[in-house]
């Protein structure tokens, strides 16, 4: 299990390549990456604030819970903070399990918890303004699937 919180970009390809590599008790690998989206071509920068100390604790707790709940072979969570540009990867999670159902469910669970329970806040900067991204009710609702 590995949890990383950093300002620097991470090497997505290298991470997925290394994740659970050479393990032959694993049949299914799922990875999710979140990307800075700019559908309307108006975003100049995405700023991510976090709560140092609590972030690492919250992510480790979420990762451990997923690992225990689905008996995962491995879990990886990487999340950036600071200033990101459109198209850059914000974060990734990866899960490894003997079968696909567990790997998918665990990755889905990790994302739901990470979205609403890890102390990150996004601010979108355009040429004209800078706005904090509002939490979505659908993200809160998604969490109820797991209780």
């Amino acid at each position, binding site marked *: 299990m590995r949890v990383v919180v950093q300002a620097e970009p991470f090497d997505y390809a290298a991470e997925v390549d290394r994740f659970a590599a050479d393990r032959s008790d694993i049949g299914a690998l799922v990875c999710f990456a979140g990307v800075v989206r700019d559908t309307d071509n108006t975003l100049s920068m995405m700023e991510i604030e976090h709560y140092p100390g609590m972030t690492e604790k919250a992510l480790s707790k979420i990762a451990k819970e997923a690992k225990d709940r689905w008996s995962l072979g491995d879990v990886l969570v990487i999340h950036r903070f600071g200033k990101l540009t459109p198209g850059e990867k914000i974060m990734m999670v990866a899960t490894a399990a003997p079968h696909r159902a567990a790997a998918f469910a665990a990755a889905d669970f990790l994302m739901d918890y990470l979205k609403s329970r890890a102390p990150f806040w996004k601010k979108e900067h355009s040429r004209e303004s800078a706005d904090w991204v509002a*939490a979505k009710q659908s993200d809160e609702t998604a969490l109820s699937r797991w209780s």
Partner: protein
Amino acid sequence: MDILYFAWVRERIGLPKEQIQTQAATVADLINELRAREERYVAAFSDLSALRVALDQELADFDAPLDGVREVAFFPPMTGG
């Protein structure tokens, strides 16, 4: 007690962190104390449904006791991922 603010709560209050002396028994009591201080606290704490609180880096409720707590953080709902 250390009080931390994040995102727009930090911006409204105008600082990321402050140390205060308080006898407040619960988070709600602390919020009332802060609100009584200055307008910027009223602005930050106007709608509690839009706020979250963490006590010593664990999410908590507004009626949670502050007994033994060293660090209180106020922030909007998280938007990670």
